[in-house]
């Protein structure tokens, strides 16, 4: 519908367009207080901020796991805000999501966890009895291969280490054939060595697959090492938006607010 409107700006079309986003979490916590942000295709955006700054709420608003209170969100040109349930599912299947706690189904096999990434595409009734078309199984296997865990497909998810579980979660997101991948503190539960390997993996899918990434981080060194663009959130507002090179000590203080810590 909105796609028919004439575009004044030249390409490239934005991957994420957020305008005036405000989220009030029950009962009355203002998590986001007027966020405007445009993300272009292929960017590796890291949302920086301390815990409680609204990073997680921002990411979860983009696929409406959290319901925005006001403002508008478009992903890949489609209106997320106001989308009816069926349309919202259609939008969601193009958005992969990775979580701090991995959020795998612990008792299910690695393969079944990755196959879940195909749920938005496969016929609903046969999926309910656990049948997936072979093309979708192949996409799941490809995702597992990309994260280097194809040999663990038959294992139960909770028998894997934390780093491996996060790789499975990334494979699940890749199996969605996404245009955009959201990662909510993907390394906060992992040690420094695993942090580097997970962030390397995210960079690889950003470069090799050309996927747009929006990743939240509370660790500034990691953010600066991987991002092509840094967005600093503090108390639900964007306080900085620019390349990693522009993040000075003063900017960090502005984002983290050492003054009132």
């Amino acid at each position, binding site marked *: 519908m909105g796609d028919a409107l004439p575009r004044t700006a030249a390409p490239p079309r934005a991957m994420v367009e957020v305008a005036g986003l405000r989220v009030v979490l029950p009962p009355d916590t203002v998590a986001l207080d007027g966020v405007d942000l445009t993300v272009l295709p292929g960017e590796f955006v890291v949302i920086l901020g301390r815990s409680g700054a609204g990073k997680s709420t921002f990411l979860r608003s983009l696929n409406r796991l959290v319901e925005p209170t006001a403002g508008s969100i478009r992903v890949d040109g489609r209106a997320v805000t106001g989308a009816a349930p069926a349309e919202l599912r259609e939008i969601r299947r193009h958005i992969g*999501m990775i*979580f701090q706690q*991995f959020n795998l189904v612990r008792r299910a096999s690695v393969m079944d966890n990755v196959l*879940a990434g*195909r*749920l938005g595409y496969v016929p*609903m009734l046969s*999926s*309910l009895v656990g049948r997936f078309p072979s093309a979708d199984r192949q996409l799941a296997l490809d995702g597992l291969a990309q994260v280097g865990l194809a040999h663990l497909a038959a294992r139960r998810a909770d028998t894997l280490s934390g780093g491996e579980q996060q790789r499975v979660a990334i494979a699940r997101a890749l199996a969605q054939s996404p245009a955009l991948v959201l990662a909510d503190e993907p390394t906060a539960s992992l040690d420094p060595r695993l942090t580097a390997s997970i962030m390397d993996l995210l960079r690889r899918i950003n470069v090799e697959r050309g996927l747009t990434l929006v990743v939240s981080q509370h660790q500034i060194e990691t953010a600066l090492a991987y991002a092509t663009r840094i967005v600093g959130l503090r108390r639900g507002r964007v306080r900085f938006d620019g390349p990693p090179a522009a993040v000075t000590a003063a900017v960090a203080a502005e984002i983290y607010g050492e003054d009132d810590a």
Partner: protein
Amino acid sequence: MSRGPAAVAFVAAVVLGWLVWDTGADPVRLARGLPWIADFLRRMMPPDLEVLPSALTGALKTAEIALLGTAVAAVLALPLGFVSARNVAPAALFYPARAILNFFRSIDTLVYALIFVAAVGLGPFPGVLAVIAYTTTSLAKLYSEAIEGIDPGPVGAITATGATRLQVLRFGVLPQVLPLFLSYVLYRLETNIRAATVLGFVGAGGIGFYLQTYLRMIDYRAASTALLVTVLMVMAVDALSSRLRRRLV
């Protein structure tokens, strides 16, 4: 503040005293009755093994009633469990479902048996119906509590893939709760075996029918055989079921 415990203790003592008086609880009367119990036990010895075949037949019937009733209830309780779980059911379904379940769960299996014997006649069939009626509502309650206790993380992750509500239940919720469900079903099977032993008292088939008949005929040695068979069967099922349940959790 310090008067709190004393006041509670005083009120409790008054209530208990009244309960003892109102129910006619009397240790002296119990002491006077003890010889009668001893006499009763003496007359039960030795068990009359002549009736062993019919006692075993009755026990088997009881196990069948419990098994069929529990199996059907385990399935019937599934949709009810989901619609009465706060975190997955829409409020429009949740509140009426909870209310209806709480109402029917307050009726015991034996009461259901009386109703079904009146409706369909004597035999194991009304027993099966009674087990189904009670177990369905009680399992639905246990299922819904298991669903309410799940980790919401995977549910959010599955939702984020663009899955439908049913797919989220199937892939995000069901794998988390299925082992618990099976464990609850086995636990219910144990209690249903016990419950089904008395169903025969009201004409709903099984070992209870034999036990009651022997007692009425004042054939205490036959009754003791029926009792022993019952105890052994309940213990066997308990042992088997708890071993299975340990492997599930």
